[in-house]
């Protein structure tokens, strides 16, 4: 393996005021994979986090499984305009939700896949979710757009994009 850094922060956004979305743009094509870590709350409870690439609103699908604390289930969404990173619970105004999103071979010329894990425990209720997403587009990913189904990301929300090099 080549010497040198293989897991590097590309950019971090820490919200100092509420915002409807978070965008990472001009993502360099110098890594193999990307990892996005989001720790988020919202201005009003219940908003779901969603993701798009390159400002595109077509050709997304995903398959998910989740535990609600009382049931385990799986489903899929096709022909979507974005990929959900939540299913049931959505953001809290006080307790941060954690999202770990791995985006594979983002600079390649094949369709793009992601693997997401969402942790939203609310001390007696909550949701744990794992999902795989597909963006049927061969363009390199140069921007990532995180947005909510409603309301705003709250102050203190942190999103960090890391680049991972295979060698």
């Amino acid at each position, binding site marked *: 393996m080549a010497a*040198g*850094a*293989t*897991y*590097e*922060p590309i950019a*971090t956004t820490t919200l100092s005021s509420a915002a409807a979305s978070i965008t990472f743009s001009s993502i360099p094509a110098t890594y193999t994979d990307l990892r996005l*870590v989001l*720790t988020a709350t919202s201005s009003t409870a219940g908003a779901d986090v969603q993701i798009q690439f390159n400002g595109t609103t077509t050709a997304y699908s995903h398959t998910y*499984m*989740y*535990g*609600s*604390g*009382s*049931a*385990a289930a*799986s489903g899929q969404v096709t022909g979507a305009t974005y990929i959900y990173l939540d299913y049931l619970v959505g953001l809290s105004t*006080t*307790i*941060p*939700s*954690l999202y*770990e999103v791995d985006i594979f071979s983002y600079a390649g010329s094949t369709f793009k896949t992601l693997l997401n*894990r*969402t*942790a*939203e*425990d*609310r*001390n*007696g*209720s*909550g*949701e*744990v979710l*794992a999902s795989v997403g597909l963006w049927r587009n061969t363009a390199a990913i140069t921007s990532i757009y995180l947005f909510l189904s409603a309301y705003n990301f709250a102050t*203190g929300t*942190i999103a*960090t994009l*890391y680049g991972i090099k295979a060698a």
Partner: protein
Amino acid sequence: MANTYTLIEAQTLASSAASVTFSAIPATYTDLVLRVSVRRDASGRQDLRLAVNGSTSDGSNTWLQGSGAAATSGTSTAQYVRINNIVPSTAETASTFGSAEFYLPSYLASANKPISGFGVGENNATTAYIGAVASLYSQTTAISSLVLSLATGSFDIGSSFYLYGIKNS
């Protein structure tokens, strides 16, 4: 740009141990990652428990588990952060270890802290478990220690534990 995924401490057991502790965790990172490979030294599959700052009552969990036959979900409160049933024992296939990862973002923040866990205890037998857990450490103090244990018994020789720090800038 600097590499920001840094090994803080590694521990591999040369003898069985009831618990493994990472203490005096430096306050110089943004997030923590804990990766383990674990087996029990006696019979009876176990849950993997994580006590944050030594607390056995400030953790809560929403979990999803697959046994090879069914998927189930549940919650628990006022206890450890835990991944159920993923630690193989001497009753399972020899030399099989459970693997797990915990991600602890913003471990220095003065807020309640979400934790994500994922683990597997595959052993080439009829019953084995995979588990994902959303956890919450309901304290606003910075995380300075992590203690891993089983509900009953000890970790076996060869169990290994790695704590990494991640900087986001």
